[in-house]
């Protein structure tokens, strides 16, 4: 998969915003991931070329971070916090339930309908609402198996209506 001309243009416009060129790498990777859903080897090379950097350097940055993905994910990727505060309030049960709901055996496995995947993450900084999870750029608080079921059901319906 290759990046669109628009994305490349946007990436090329990033460097002047920063005192040094390399600071543009993570935001450039955001643009690429936003467009393709993940960072393919070709995309990382294109990002590097657009910024005039070495592809190996860009890949080195991309592979460090939890929020940058080189593997495909479900359309809704759920980040479930399982650090101590959430675990004390039932995060393990939430993960267990989630796997059953979307029919996957492990983290990052994509559900058969392509809609869902999940991963367990470290503290997301909302412990007073534990257990909690993040999906599609927002936080879901006080998660219970029932709430989770409603959430998944909602997304399934949305996908059914949309397609």
């Amino acid at each position, binding site marked *: 998969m290759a990046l669109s001309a628009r994305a490349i243009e946007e990436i090329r416009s990033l460097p002047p915003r920063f005192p040094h060129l390399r600071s543009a790498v*993570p935001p450039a990777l955001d643009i690429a991931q936003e467009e393709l859903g993940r960072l393919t080897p070709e995309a990382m090379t294109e990002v590097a070329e657009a910024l005039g950097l070495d592809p190996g350097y860009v890949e080195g940055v991309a592979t460090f971070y939890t*929020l940058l993905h080189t593997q495909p994910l479900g359309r809704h990727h759920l980040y479930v916090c399982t650090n101590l505060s959430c*675990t004390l309030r039932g995060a393990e049960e939430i993960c267990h339930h989630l796997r059953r709901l979307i029919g996957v055996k492990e983290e990052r496995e994509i559900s058969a309908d392509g809609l869902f995947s999940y991963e367990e993450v470290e503290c997301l900084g909302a*412990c007073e609402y534990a257990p909690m999870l993040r999906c599609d750029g927002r936080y879901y608080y006080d998660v219970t198996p029932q709430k989770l079921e409603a959430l998944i059901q909602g997304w399934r319906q949305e996908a059914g209506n949309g397609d």
Partner: protein
Amino acid sequence: MATEVPAFSPHVPSTELRGSGGLTPPGPVLTRFFGTPGLYTLAVYRDHGGYRSLERALKEMTPQEVHAQVKASGLRGRGGAGFPTGTKWGFVPADVPGPRYVVVNFDEAEPGTTKDRYLVENCPHQLLEGACIAAYAVGAHQVWIYIRGEYDHPYRILLEAIEEARQQGILGERPFGVDYPLDIQLYRGHGAYICGEETGLLESLEGKRPQPRSRPPFPAVKGAWGRPTLMNNVETLSTLPWIVEHGGQAYHALGTDRSGGTRMLSVSGDVRRPGVYEIPIGVTFRHVIMELAGGPPPGRQVKVFWPGGSSAPVLPASMLDVSTDLDELARVGSMGGSGGVIVADDSRCVVKAAARLLRFYAHESCGKCTPCRVGTDWAVRTYRRILDGEGSSADLQILDRIQASLQNGRCLCGLGDSGGWVIMSTMRHFRPEYEAHALRRQCVTGECERQGAADA
């Protein structure tokens, strides 16, 4: 970094305010207006006296006078290290020509810590004002806020707040008509605990893998993009408007002798009212856990608590009367840390909790220093053996050796030490639980058996 301000509708910061201004009355400093509708907007913030401190600093005070007030306040960094803020400011050289920066550490990721998110969601302008005051005090014109990538909502709130401040001319060439240009930029993280470590953060801000740097040189001298840089935590900076308004002495008087003022504590885990509370420093953890947060669930007792994030060595319930004073916490072998108070009740297995935290440190170790990279992973495998019922006395000795090897400055940053403290402090206070697990394959609380049955 987004290219434009995304669609943003007025909102209530959180579904329900859990803490000062919500569950309890607003606190005296940081949360004094919390609970006021629309406090996140510039208009409401200014109605409550917002930005008057910045105006006053720019118009009536010299940078030295601002610095003197901060020194007098006794304010200590709220990110975790508790270093005196006034002293830190003094490290930024006055005489180096060229650009210099204020970098705001909003990479809140210490397990159990949510206060910076709480402060920004409710009152973003308080942070912006504080950051501008700090910039003025150290001679900087550019502020960079490094915000963790998962904080989508606080990011949008800050984007909007910065835009509002620009439109009003508070940020720009002549804030309040004074010839002191000020600007604030946001930079998003991408998910790595190590970015909360100040030199890891700087590497990340520079677009590199966020592996900590060796020091010296310290960031004050050679920080972001090689320039002199003042780095402070969100809470630390949010305190400055109050200090400028009321004076350093008044702030100091709210706390203890050695730890001035108030601070935010986020209380989570086995309590009835988890939330973020502003407390005058010096109250006891009994007050925080039993009164503010409502104590453990019915029929349960507090067993253990982390007084300042997962990295602060644990304290058993018998030490609930310890003060929140930073020096007092150090004296009993722990630390005030990031103010994340995690409480576990008597149904919880300490070994299992420690194992979970070591998994965290192993995952977040950046891999640069061998003791941390290898030690945390080794600890994870040892804990797994113990919890799987395959432990032995040798495993307890291994844990002992790992915790010692992780500590005492063997690494470039404190991540390894923190993992070591989890092992050390839980073994110190709960040795019999470790022995039951490792030597007799028993969980004294029964939690692990219950869990095992649920998984099967």
